[in-house]
């Protein structure tokens, strides 16, 4: 079996365990047979998600972050659907809040990175712009 697939399986199991602990922490009564089944469904969803992420052309950190946040998202949505099957607004609100947080983090990282690269390029031009243009 490929090393990357073993990684994915380990990540999936580990993250699902965290989701399980988190949900159990929020509401211990939710720990039931139905929830066990739901976790099995989440596992399939997360596995598919991890496989999708692993095939994308992203950096290692991005993949890990996406896996963690993606797993959390799937876990939260599953929890909401399980606990409040008729409360669509809560589900949508959670989805939007999650999206906004993720967008904020992404924009902040983008801005910082862009500034760093601008500085590096400026320095590279100072350092050897003339030499390299020859």
């Amino acid at each position, binding site marked *: 079996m490929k090393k990357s697939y073993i990684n994915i399986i380990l990540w999936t199991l580990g993250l699902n365990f965290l989701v399980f602990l988190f949900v159990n922490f929020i509401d211990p009564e939710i720990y039931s047979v139905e929830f066990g089944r739901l976790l099995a469904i989440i596992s399939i969803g997360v596995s598919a998600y991890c496989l999708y992420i692993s095939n*994308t*052309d*992203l*950096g290692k*950190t*991005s993949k890990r972050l996406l896996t963690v946040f993606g797993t959390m998202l799937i876990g939260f949505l599953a929890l909401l659907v399980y606990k409040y099957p008729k409360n669509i607004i809560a589900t949508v609100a959670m989805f939007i809040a999650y999206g906004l947080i993720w967008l904020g983090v992404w924009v902040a990282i983008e801005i910082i*990175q*862009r500034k*760093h*690269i601008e*500085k*590096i*390029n*400026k*320095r*590279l*031009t*100072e*350092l*050897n*712009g003339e*030499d*390299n243009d020859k």
Partner: protein
Amino acid sequence: MKITIDKNELYKEPEVVIKCRAISHEVQEIISVISVIGKNLAGEIDGETFFIPLAEILYFESVEGCIFFYTDKTVYKSQSRLYNLEEGLRDTYFVRVSKTAIVNLKKLKSIKREKNSRLLGTLANGEKIMISRGYVAEIRKKLGV
């Protein structure tokens, strides 16, 4: 900047002493340039060994356990290990940019962000090289920015 040359027949080899308040960009550049003067690296092509001045090398790359280094037009095979090279080139403008490559910053033209968040460096000869974000801090440190 003041340059003083002390010529004496008793000296066995040239020695450079830099007197400065702090390590500025200018001082760092002097150190990096001086560090590679007269230094060559052995590289092989088809079993024949050549000695290439460090200043001419664009980058080192590890490919399936073998180390290759690239000049403007030629690729040489090196017997060194990447971590040994990294250690030996610490005071120069050579810097690790990924798990598999060390680049000569004097030969790096620019860095560009790709759509997939990866970084791509353009070398003096137009060649592109992948730069891992994890090594950007090291590049910034070396460039003093």
